[in-house]
């Protein structure tokens, strides 16, 4: 821990599924009338972003940041999926308000079941940890990371993980102007 970092609560990263493990398949609601399964996305890299809750009140909001960086993820052919224990209507309102262009899955019933299977459920809070999983096209986790709940991890770790096994398209499309 560097001297520049504030005192942030310690999380429990040792429980999160690690690189090399097959990503457990799941099916969750993406909208009030649509379900999405991890297996629907096989053949391409998938970024699973577990986060504690919709409506984080800052511009540093992780999902809004990833929304802006989406073109960069797409250069790798990667699909981004957000997951929290919020319900579908909450997700729908949040996604509309923040103009999100990727699915938010509702890990709502049974609550946090998928987060549990990935080892990132926080029982006391009733939410998932802030955790990232980069999964390759064959369904194997290639990188995982758990952040302190109050700290947005940014996207550099995701892009470094994608670099290790996926080749980006040549044209730059960082997303600043999109």
């Amino acid at each position, binding site marked *: 821990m560097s001297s520049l*970092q*504030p005192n942030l609560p310690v999380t429990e990263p040792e429980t999160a599924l690690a690189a090399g493990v097959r990503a457990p398949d799941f099916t969750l609601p993406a909208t009030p009338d649509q379900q999405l399964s991890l297996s629907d996305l096989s053949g391409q890299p998938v970024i699973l972003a577990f986060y504690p809750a919709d409506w984080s009140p800052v*511009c540093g909001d992780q999902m*809004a940041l990833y929304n802006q960086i989406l073109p960069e993820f797409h250069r790798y052919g990667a699909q981004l999926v957000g997951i929290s224990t919020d319900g579908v209507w909450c997700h729908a309102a949040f996604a509309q308000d923040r103009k999100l262009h990727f699915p938010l899955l509702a890990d709502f019933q049974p609550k946090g079941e998928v987060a549990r299977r990935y080892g990132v459920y926080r029982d006391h809070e009733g939410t998932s940890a802030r955790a990232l999983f980069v999964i390759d096209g064959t369904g194997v986790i290639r990188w995982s990371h758990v952040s302190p709940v109050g700290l947005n991890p*940014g*996207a*550099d770790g995701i892009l470094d993980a994608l670099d290790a096994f996926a080749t980006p398209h040549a044209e730059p499309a960082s997303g600043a*102007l*999109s």
Partner: protein
Amino acid sequence: MSRLTPAVGPSDHVQGPANAPVTLVEYGDYECPYCGETYPVLKEVQRLMGDKLRFVFRNFPLSQMHPHAVRAAELAEAAAAAGRFWEAHDLLYEHQDALGNFSLMDYGARLGLDAAALEAAFAGRYDAKIEADFSGGVRSGVNGTPSLFINGQRYDGPRDVESLVTVLEAVASAAHAAS
């Protein structure tokens, strides 16, 4: 650990001495209210740190959230080409409530930029620079705006004058002791 990947270079907007022991890099968005809150804080921090601090501003417009952010950045870059970046930067942060097209044209005129220069900026003359700032920021671990890096390391602590000066002074002393 998230570290600033593109080192501070000739394409950066810089205030303060090149040999200052501490460099503070801000990735900012002219329309972001948190950047607006931080603007006077950083001014005060610069004043208190004096020649010990070099300050750098890089573009990180969150255009999906802030419809005027990119055009504001384009205006600032056009001002930079005329040697007036920091005046534009300050003007934009002091008028965050008025960043529409008419306002930006007005600021451009106040900065002495002619209509052709503004038109070229809004048509994308500086977009590659803005994209490069953004992309470098993403790779460096920018996690929202404003994101601050102190001597290349992302700072996630509180953004009040006292906290920032304490950290910057500590880094300056450490740099001085190591040199």
